[in-house]
Structure formats: structure tokens, C-alpha cells
């Protein structure tokens, strides 16, 4: 198969080869994570923290996969030429969405059990019976509808991810037809509408309903902005890693492509800051207790430090680090900023989720880190599996050659 594949590749990209190192690292990571998670699961006192930690890790891998799916859809929507050589990496992360769906099953099972009420207060019937507001929200915040929504979201995301990835992989073998490209371009516009609605409501369900009294209409956009930064950081790290390990072939990804990734990353770093500040300022200005308590909790005690750190890690440092033109073509700089931004996403999600569990001060222990390690390890395992089976570049795309010639 590989020989036949190799001939249609016009010698740009070497055929896939095993990535043992990456797979072993991922196995170790997920094994450690799974051991920690299991230990916590069988202990009554640690189980609540495990629940929050699992949600933390789940939302992280979810944002990586869905953000990448958005990236793929966006490139088709605007018929981008430059991104053809990096799109396969995004498709790879988008294709992991079925694993994300699988990793949601434990959360759902947890919600159906008694423990779920410690994660989502609106699951606690006793609590709801004393709370007029939560009773009003019951038509939306109830377990059957919550589960049905999640199922619908994942069905749509998996559907689009399979559609985009399969059509792209199909092009690798027989590159005579432009039909798959046209089909994907046509599907990308409805995808954007579906993506906008599902992402907003999924972030309401999984993050905002942790504090069911609180509401913010911009919340979906806030989660979206962090999600795209995460996806771009992952795409950049993977692309640079593939290039330096020689899997990408020589001269496939050049300065121009890196520059565009850097520009997009810079733009979405600014976009995140814009949205985060918009949300903060309106609540701060209005100063209405039913909204402001969410921020008051995050700006008091030990959480103040996390809130300030969030602004520094997610905006100030990456903004300054990516500001100059030469920084956006410097692989080392891009790599470190990307890793920094991934840490920023974890910090952001920690800031969103954990004050619910530790209201007084931030606490981080093995109970929270275990599931994150496990889910990230599984994602890396998926990546290594994908790279062993498929080309890291969509060489069959009709715009591939044009994309190679892209430079700034």
C-alpha cells in the first residue's frame, strides 16, 4: 500500500512510519493518569475532586478537538491556500472527537449516580426544591435533556469531523478529482452555523451550569476564543514537531505557513482578551449581585492570584512574545508560546471550574491532575496512531502545490 501511495505523492512527503517514542510516552502518561484516577475513584473523600478534575481534563481535550474542527471548517469556508499543508494536523485533532465523546460517558454516568450532584448542583433534587431560581431553570437544566443535548452535540461534531477527515484522506490516494474539495467547501458554511450554536450551548451545559445561578450571554464566545487558541497552539506544536522530525518532508512547511499560524494565534490571543475583558467589565460595571458573585469569588483570597495570572499567561506574555514580525516565523519562539498557551487554556478552565470545588483558595493535587494526564495521554496516543497510518499532509488537495509556493 505504501509503495502505491508513495508514487502519487510527487516525492514531497515521506510515507508514514511508526512513532514508537511518542506512543510509549503517551502510554506512560495515560497509565499514570489512569492509576491516579482509579485510586481516587475508589476513595469516598477523593471522588468529588476526581469528578471536577475529570471535567477539567475532558473540557481541555474537547476544546482541542473542537477547536481543530473549527479550524478545518474555516479553511474550507474561505478556500484558504496557505493552510493546505497544515490542515491535516488539524484534521487529525478534529478526528479525535469520537474519543472525546467516549470520555464524556463517565461524566454522564457520574451524573446519573448520586455523586453527580456534587459536580452539577442542579442535579440535587433536595437542593432544587429549596431554590426558586433552579426550579425555574428545570425545563432546561434536567438530566434527560442534558444527556440528550450532549448526544446531539457529539453526533453533529462526529458527523462533521468524519466528513471532513474522510474526504481529505480520500484525496491522498486518488487525486484526480476536485469533487471532495468542492463537497467540503459546500458543507463548511452550514457547519459554521451548527458549530456556533452547539459550542455555545455545550459551554453553557458543561461549564456555566456548574454555577447554575450565574449567567453570561458572552460565555459561549469566551469558551470559543480559548478553544481556537488551544487548537492553533496544538497545530503549531505538531507542525513544528513533524517538520523537525523529518516526517513532513523538506520544504513543505515554510516561513510563510508558520507566519500565518503565528498571526492567527496572535489574533485569537487578542480576541480572547477582548472577550474576557468584555465579560468582566460589564459585570463589574453593572455590579448586580446576581452576576457579580461569580467574579467576586474569583477575585478574593487565593483566587485573585489565579485571575491575575490568567491575564498574564493568556494575554500579556503571548501578546508581547508574538508581537514582532520575526517572532511569527521563529519556530523556537512559536513552540514555546504555544506550550505557554496550552498551559493558559488549562489555567483558564481551572479558573472556570475549580472555584466551585475550592471556594476559598485554589488547590491542585493528584486527584485533579490524574484525569487530565490520562485524557491528554489518550489524545497523544490517538495522534501517534493516526500518524502511523496516515500522511501528515493532505497531498491530494487540489490546492496543495499552490500552498507549497506560499511565502510572505
Amino acid at each position, binding site marked *: 500500500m505504501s509503495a502505491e501511495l508513495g508514487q502519487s505523492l510527487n516525492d514531497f512527503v515521506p510515507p508514514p512510519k511508526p512513532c514508537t517514542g511518542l506512543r510509549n510516552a503517551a502510554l506512560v502518561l495515560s497509565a499514570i493518569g489512569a492509576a491516579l484516577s482509579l485510586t481516587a475513584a475508589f476513595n469516598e473523600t477523593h471522588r468529588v475532586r476526581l469528578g471536577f478534575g475529570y471535567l477539567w481534563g475532558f473540557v481541555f481535550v474537547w476544546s482541542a478537538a473542537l477547536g481543530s474542527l473549527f479550524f478545518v471548517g474555516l479553511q474550507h469556508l474561505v478556500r484558504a491556500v496557505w493552510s493546505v499543508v497544515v490542515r491535516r494536523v488539524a484534521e487529525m485533532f478534529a478526528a479525535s472527537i469520537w474519543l472525546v465523546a467516549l470520555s464524556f460517558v463517565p461524566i454522564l454516568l457520574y451524573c446519573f449516580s448520586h455523586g453527580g450532584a456534587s459536580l452539577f448542583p442542579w442535579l440535587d433534587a433536595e437542593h432544587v426544591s429549596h431554590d426558586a431560581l433552579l426550579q425555574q431553570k428545570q425545563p432546561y437544566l434536567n438530566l434527560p435533556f442534558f444527556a440528550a443535548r450532549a448526544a446531539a452535540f457529539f453526533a453533529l461534531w462526529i458527523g462533521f469531523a468524519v466528513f471532513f477527515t474522510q474526504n481529505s484522506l480520500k484525496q491522498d490516494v486518488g487525486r484526480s478529482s476536485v469533487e471532495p474539495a468542492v463537497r467540503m467547501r459546500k458543507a463548511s458554511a452550514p457547519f459554521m452555523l451548527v458549530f456556533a450554536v452547539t459550542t455555545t450551548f455545550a459551554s453553557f451545559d458543561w461549564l456555566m451550569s456548574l454555577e447554575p445561578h450565574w449567567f453570561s450571554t458572552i460565555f459561549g464566545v469566551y469558551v470559543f476564543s480559548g478553544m481556537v487558541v488551544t487548537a492553533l497552539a496544538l497545530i503549531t506544536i505538531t507542525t513544528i514537531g513533524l517538520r523537525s522530525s523529518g516526517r513532513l518532508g523538506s520544504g513543505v512547511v515554510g516561513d510563510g505557513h508558520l507566519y500565518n499560524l503565528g498571526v492567527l494565534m496572535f489574533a485569537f490571543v487578542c480576541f480572547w482578551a477582548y472577550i474576557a475583558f468584555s465579560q468582566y467589565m460589564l459585570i463589574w*460595571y453593572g*455590579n448586580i449581585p446576581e452576576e457579580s458573585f461569580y467574579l467576586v469569588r474569583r477575585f478574593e483570597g487565593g483566587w485573585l492570584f489565579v485571575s491575575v495570572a490568567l491575564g498574564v499567561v493568556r494575554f500579556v506574555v503571548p501578546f508581547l512574545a508574538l508581537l*514582532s514580525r520575526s517572532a511569527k516565523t521563529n519556530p523556537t519562539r512559536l513552540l514555546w508560546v504555544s506550550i505557554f498557551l496550552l498551559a493558559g487554556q488549562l489555567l483558564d478552565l481551572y479558573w472556570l471550574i475549580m472555584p466551585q470545588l475550592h471556594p476559598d483558595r485554589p488547590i491542585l493535587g493528584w486527584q485533579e491532575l490524574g484525569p487530565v494526564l490520562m485524557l491528554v495521554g489518550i489524545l497523544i496516543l490517538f495522534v501517534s496512531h493516526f500518524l502511523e497510518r496516515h500522511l501528515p499532509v493532505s497531498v491530494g488537495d487540489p490546492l496543495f502545490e499552490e500552498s507549497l509556493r506560499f*511565502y510572505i
Partner: protein
Amino acid sequence: MSKSREKVVGVVGLYDDPSSLLRAAEGVRDAGFTRWDCHTPFPVHGLDRAMGLKSSPLPTLALTAGLIGVLAAFVLTGGLNALHYPIRIAGKPMLSWQAFVPIYFEMFVLFSALTIMGSLFVFCGLGRWHSPLHDSGVMSEITGARFAIVLGADDRMYSQADAKTLLEATGCRDIRPLVQFEEEDDAII
């Protein structure tokens, strides 16, 4: 319009495609010329590198002006609200910087945008009404399908014969002297 004196102020080399222009620009760059320019009907990628252009001071100017704008906005809003005319609004602290972040942002954008526009005019040499290129007929060709390199006679590397040889060496088939007409009637304009 009466008699006019002619003066050679440079040499123009015309090329038929962007890649030969790029090669020629590299040649001129390596020869050490400083007073020269390229003219093309559309943006040619990589020309800045081929010409050995240094990076523009514009980003630094824009950032500096933007930061001055932020400072101005801070003094304007904070000075008014906290010092000169203190009014407590909605129980907030006098110096409520959060409320004025949109103003800081807008002033950053305003100051840097105006600076970029102003320095663009300066860098493009606004204030000079005329260029000898306009009379040469070269302009009508390079807004069509041709590409030009202009070597200025005020370059210290320049001597007419050498410039011509240099352009010939880069494969140029169409070399013309650039002539300035000094018209006695309206020399001031």
C-alpha cells in the same frame, strides 16, 4: 513652455517578468547601490528581500504612538475623574481604570493609526510634486505589463557606463537614460 535643458538623473532598466526583476534586484543590491528603486504593476513577493530592504521603522513608530495614546487616555480620564472634578459614580473607586479600558484601547488605535498614516506620507515622499519618471514614458509601461529598476545618478556608486553595464549583466534588454527637463518658465513648480 519655452526651451528646456536636459539633465540625465539616472538609468532605467525594463524587464518582462517578475523573476528576472528579482534576479536583477539581487544583482544591484550586491553591487552596493543605495539610491535605487523597483517599479512593478503588482506586488512582487520576495522583492523586499531581493532588494535588501531593511525592516520598516513603521511598527516601532506605531507601537510608540499607541502607548503615548494610552498614556494620554489615562491622564485624560483619570485626571478628570479622580483629580480635577472628582465625582463618585456607582460607588466605584475614583480611579476606576476598568471603566476606561475601552478608551485606552481606542486611543491606542487612534494614535497609532494617525501615526501610520502620517509616516506613510513622509516615507512616500509626499511634498514632492513631480518625478522625472513621469515624463519618461516608463510609468505607462510599468502599470501595464513590465517591471523596472531605476538607478539614481545621485548614488555614489553611479556612473552612467557602469550602471548600464550592471543592468546589461542582469540580462536587461531595454535600458534607457532617465532625463529631467529643467523648464525655464516654471522651474519653481
